[in-house]
């Protein structure tokens, strides 16, 4: 039993507890409790200014927590930041590299600082991401600068990748290749925390998502669970019009619009209760579409906005 618990603990690469960061009167992060395990990608979602960057910079030991604890690889991120950095790759949200150096030169410098010696993987990586290695960073486009930053973050195959909006400015093909790359790292046991303000950027690569708004964690759940909660827009055509209140009592049904032989409604969660009820009538056509997760979030947490 003890061994099991220890294993579970050791698999926790990132663990924050009631992590709080205050700038004067501004509360940037409010009691955030978050975990990232080895072998998973956590998509860290929230609107701009929600506290995603603050969280990542706390994990890197760039900022001192006002309250709460932040442990990375079991180390205190503020006190043992050198130990954390030895096993962590970081990409800042607003990548700023030395303008006069090429990506290759910058990678060489960082590889020496990391004690890696010559780094053979950079050429392969650069090829996969279609990154420009031999022009000074100041001459690069925003997308190419982003790729250069990614290369530097991936240097030395760290156990943990903290990536702040990594795919912003990348074209979709490169984005896909980058996601493959992340999956490879994760299958090899790495942990990834990937922030974004757009769900579609993390939907295809994340195992779990955590959503933050105004410094507070709203939810941390697996994508599968979220999908179960996703809404479905359902349209049904009947052979003859059912009675007006035929679907009123179906659990999870919303926005029912029955116009003659056509039913349009939204199902919250699984559609099974509706399907069971539909069995009583003759259905000529059935169309069900899963709302994307963005709509799901709006549905789940949008109400909180107005209160």
């Amino acid at each position: 039993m003890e061994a099991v618990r220890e294993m579970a603990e050791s698999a926790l690469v990132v663990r924050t507890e009631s992590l709080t960061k205050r700038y004067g009167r501004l509360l940037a992060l409010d009691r955030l409790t978050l975990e990232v395990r080895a072998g998973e990608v956590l998509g860290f979602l929230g609107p701009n200014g929600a506290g995603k960057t603050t969280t990542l910079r706390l994990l890197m030991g760039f900022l001192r927590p006002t309250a709460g604890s932040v442990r990375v690889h079991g180390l205190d991120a503020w006190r043992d930041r050198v130990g954390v950095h030895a096993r962590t790759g970081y990409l800042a949200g607003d990548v700023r590299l030395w303008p006069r150096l090429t990506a290759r030169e910058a990678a060489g410098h960082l590889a020496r600082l990391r004690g890696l010696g010559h780094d053979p993987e950079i050429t392969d990586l650069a090829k996969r991401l279609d990154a420009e290695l031999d022009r000074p960073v100041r001459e690069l486009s925003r997308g190419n600068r982003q790729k250069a930053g990614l290369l530097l973050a991936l240097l030395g195959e760290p156990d943990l990748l903290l990536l702040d909006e990594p795919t912003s400015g990348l074209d979709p093909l490169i984005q896909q290749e980058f996601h493959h790359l992340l999956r490879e790292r994760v299958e090899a046991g790495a942990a990834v925390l990937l922030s974004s303000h757009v769900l579609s950027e993390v939907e295809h690569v994340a195992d779990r998502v955590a959503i933050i708004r105004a410094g507070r964690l709203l939810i941390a759940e697996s994508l599968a669970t979220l999908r179960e909660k996703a809404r479905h827009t359902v349209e049904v055509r009947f052979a003859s019009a059912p009675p007006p209140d035929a679907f009123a009592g179906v659990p999870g049904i919303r926005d029912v619009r029955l116009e003659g032989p056509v039913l349009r409604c939204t199902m919250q969660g699984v559609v099974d209760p509706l399907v069971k009820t539909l069995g009583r009538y003759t259905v000529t056509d059935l169309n069900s579409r899963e709302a994307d997760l963005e709509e799901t979030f709006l549905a789940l947490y949008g109400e909180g906005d107005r209160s």
Partner: protein
Amino acid sequence: MTAMIATRGEITWQMLRGGRRALMAWAAAFAALVALYAAIWPSIHGNTQWQDLFNTLPQTYRALFTAGGQLDLSTPAGYLGIELMGFLGPALMAVYAIGVGAAAIAGEESRGELEVTLSVPVARGQVLAGRAAALLIDITAVTVATGLAMWVFSLAFGMHLGVAAIASAAAALGIFGFFTGTVALAVGAATGSAALARGLAALIAVASYLINALAQVTSAVKPARPLSPFYLLLGNEPLQHGLRAVGALSVLAVALALVVGGGIVFARRDLA
């Protein structure tokens, strides 16, 4: 331990590489300045009118233009001591050193470039130490270039300055520059503000110059004179009287303390 030295060396080397063009330009500028003064020497030599004019000026004015209050244009050391060591040399050295020192941490931080360096497993104090070493090497290079120029042009224009005198003068300039540079480096590391680093370092450089000058004419300022790095290094005119070891070592000790203090604050503050 060796790994630590290797990473610090890499930090130092990286900063030196980035600043090599500026270093060469400043070294050349100092050499050119020395050459210019040396080239004028033959026409000043034996001319007593400047000396007579100077003697008629108020003492305050004389104090501002000479580190020690004395004007001696009859000897090469006295002449170059006034022209180069009294104001322009230390001022230019401070401008260069403050620029390098403020850029080293705070400059990079304000441009957002520092995070990349600080995301690798190197302690912030090590980064600061490596960059302080680069500042020292930069200043040493400009100092050596200035000293070499003094030696070459003193020979060329018949000034016959002694090697020891030249070394003392160049070292005094260099240590003054290094001190002002470490103020900028330490303030920048402690606060993250390059503007504050430059401003405060310039203020301290100017104050140390003014304290030395005014102490010669105002008894109220006199007790503060031994606190002035300008006085400690340049007040006794090192080209004529050599470098005062105690003064030079105290200024170097303060510079070192500034780097250590800056490093302590740097390690404990939020990055911008």
